[in-house]
């Protein structure tokens, strides 16, 4: 970008701060973060850019030629990169997918911009000129940077985006203008977390005023949902290897060490593979693909804890449950059904089996009556979220019964948290 023709002009700080004030008024939940940013005048940056230490580099020429209301939008845009930890996530993505070079970093910057811009503007805030939106690239709004990154390449569309540069705070690549970790007015990692935490708390505390994208961020920023496979695995494992099942010490036979301690009775390690019953809700609301992956997961886990394939029983259940199938015939299990579900029938059927199951895993969407008393074995509930978007607020009047307290509940289908930083 060419500088103003009449030589370099000083940075118009009043204009820049008026814009920040407007931004903080339009987005009060971001005010803490906006005020924590430290502006640094820089003639290297094309427009405005941030680094990971929460400094905001500003081009005087850009401030000169941009109206206050658009500058406010740029402030919000830049602070969003930092709040959403785009630099950390870019680094992670670069390492995981082995993406190298400035071109890939430019793609990360564009993908991060798409994540921010699809719901950042409007409602008192003007979209700055040249802001990249998912629509501009022909993509769907509402996705995360990591997802956008898979969906476009650099090409004719992105040709005139090559000047786009939100700094190392957006894509993790150090810039020549960066002041670095030792420069003045940087925020330490803990301070950055503290600011992000306060913003997240402000958003969760004032439900309804922030757009869905920010509410989701606030929910996940410090409590990322864990991958359901791991959670289900941990729940089934601990249920299947508790006392009475799995591998443990028993006094049923003397220990091989007993010879060394005459007269004493030592326990020995014995393995009793766990018997697992999977009760499946076959009502229409659960998709076959979800069910299939959940069943495979349960089978794999029970094998890992020492069970055999024939020790996993599957009980399909809608309003009634008549038959239990061993999993070795798994491919042919008819998962037909539909209409109402009554999981109580499934539990009764599973408990009638001989030998009795050590663990019951119920896979359901939760739209069902639950047994009123605790079954005589450990219970894990894999719960499929009812609505496709759990943030759908139109569906607020219907609240299904939640699973009973004696069951361990794992929500299936929520992806791994990608906003999180420092929470391993």
């Amino acid at each position: 970008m060419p500088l103003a023709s009449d030589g370099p002009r000083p940075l118009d700080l009043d204009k820049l701060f008026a814009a920040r004030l407007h931004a903080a008024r339009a987005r009060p939940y971001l005010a803490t973060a906006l005020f924590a940013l430290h502006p640094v005048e820089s003639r290297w940056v094309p427009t405005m850019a941030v680094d990971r230490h929460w400094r905001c580099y500003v081009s005087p020429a850009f401030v000169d030629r941009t109206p206050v209301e658009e500058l406010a939008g740029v402030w919000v845009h830049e602070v969003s990169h930092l709040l959403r930890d785009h630099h950390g996530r870019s680094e992670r993505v670069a390492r995981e997918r082995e993406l190298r070079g400035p071109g890939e970093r430019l793609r990360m910057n564009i993908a991060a911009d798409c994540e921010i811009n699809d719901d950042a503007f409007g409602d008192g805030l003007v979209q700055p000129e040249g802001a990249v939106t998912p629509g501009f690239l022909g993509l769907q709004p509402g996705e995360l940077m990591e997802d956008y990154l898979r969906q476009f390449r650099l090409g004719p569309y992105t040709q005139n985006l090559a000047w786009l540069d939100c700094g190392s705070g957006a894509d993790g690549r150090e810039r020549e203008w960066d002041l670095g970790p030792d420069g003045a007015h940087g925020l330490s990692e803990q301070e950055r977390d503290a600011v992000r935490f306060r913003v997240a708390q402000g958003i969760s505390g004032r439900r309804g005023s922030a757009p869905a994208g920010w509410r989701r961020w606030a929910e996940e920023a410090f409590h990322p949902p864990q991958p359901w496979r791991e959670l289900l695995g941990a729940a089934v494992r601990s249920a299947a290897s508790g006392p009475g099942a799995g591998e443990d010490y028993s006094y049923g036979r003397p220990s091989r060490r007993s010879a060394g301690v005459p007269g004493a009775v030592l326990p020995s390690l014995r393995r009793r593979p766990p018997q697992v019953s999977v009760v499946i809700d076959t009502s229409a609301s659960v998709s076959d693909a979800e069910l299939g992956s959940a069943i495979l997961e349960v089978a794999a886990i029970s094998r890992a804890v020492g069970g055999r394939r024939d020790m996993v029983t599957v009980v399909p259940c809608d309003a009634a449950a008549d038959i239990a199938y061993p999993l070795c015939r798994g491919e042919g299990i008819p998962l037909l059904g539909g209409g109402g579900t009554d999981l109580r029938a499934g539990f009764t059927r599973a408990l009638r089996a001989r030998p009795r199951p050590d663990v019951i895993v119920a896979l359901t969407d939760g739209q069902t009556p639950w047994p009123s008393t605790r079954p005589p074995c450990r219970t894990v509930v894999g719960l499929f979220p009812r609505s496709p978007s759990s943030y759908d607020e139109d569906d607020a009047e219907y609240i299904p019964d939640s699973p009973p307290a004696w069951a361990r509940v794992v929500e299936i289908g929520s992806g791994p948290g990608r906003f999180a930083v420092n929470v391993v």
Partner: protein
Amino acid sequence: MPACTPLALVDTPSDPFVSHSAPAPRTSQLDVAADLLTLLRHSTTEPRPDDQLEALTLAVAADLPVLLWGEPGIGKTAALTQLAEALDLPLTTVIASVHEPSDFSGLPIVGDDPAEQGVPMAPPDWAVRLVRAGRGLLFLDELSTAPPAVQAALLRLVLERRIGALTLPPGVRIVAAANPRGSAADGWELSPPLANRFVHLQWTHDHEVVVRGLGGTWPRATLPRLDPAKLAGAVEFARRAVCGLLAARPKLVHQLPSSEARRGGAWPSPRSWEMTLTLIAFATAAGSSRDVLSLLVRGTVGDGPGLELLASLDRMDLPDPETLLADPAGAVLPERGDLRQAVLDGVVAAVRTRPDRSRWDAAWALLVRALETGAPDLVVVPATTLASLRQEDWDVPASIEKLAGVVTLSRRADHAADRAAARSAVAAKAGR
């Protein structure tokens, strides 16, 4: 050592290379191999700050049970070796998964008359040596791959410090390590009461450190030293920090983890808050950074309450509104914008709770000072609120003229808001 077997075979006379060489070489193949190994093992160290090792050191020094969560093979043992060196303690490593429960609860030794004398539970040799030495670092590795009964026996060892009939002396410090739930092959899971007794530290590897280390230079962490002069102040600070937060947020005192995702991790209870208090005192006495403290606090009471505590520590560092009001001319305001605004808001709130003329004037003087030393947009909200506190017989102070720029700035933002509204109205019309 299985890796030596092929090399040993090379040395036998049946090997063609060795049997045909006429003068027997003075150095055998094994010696050459030893030379090569020496070269490979030769590495230097460089000083490098290591937050997780510093956090571990402080927790161990504070004699709190630490649980390191980390994938196998990422250098937990190496870190423990370094820690033992730094604390000058002999290191004893016990691999939990190859032991039986009786190794930790004691082996029953039947004597002549069990009914009369009872059956003593004999401890294993390493425990006897530890007790005899009176001091040491006991590292219980691979806790998560041991069968449940062994885990139960080990937890008793960690928490009650008893092995069979022996009690570990206070000079022995214990650290345990476990694999994260997702990768543990067996049913390892801490119940919430047990999880509450540990400081949970996530152990991760740093890509750069590994690459540089394999290249021959490993990091050498400078470990914290407790400063005897700071002890009393550290305790006072820690008590003020924890009590201040819990007095304001009673709900944080006890929160049993409810969701499946948070099981087995740190959660707040009076017990873990007491541990937090201890750790704050240790970190303060050692002069550790907030980043280290953050690892410790979040590993003790969990992320949410931990972050709230850290945020309130940041607030504790802010100047007291009453001090500022007493001497507005000498006031030093924080540089960071969000903190500066928090201070100014605090000052205005203090005037509101006890309004009188001189305090109101002092607050205006502070706002002028804030305007002269920092960004003007931070002053807008406090100035508006302060103006609304004016009582009828109070004259407007002369210094208020210096705040004219703030009014201009505020108007400029208002105009921008109007234009933004107009533009979106036009856009909406064009869109339909």
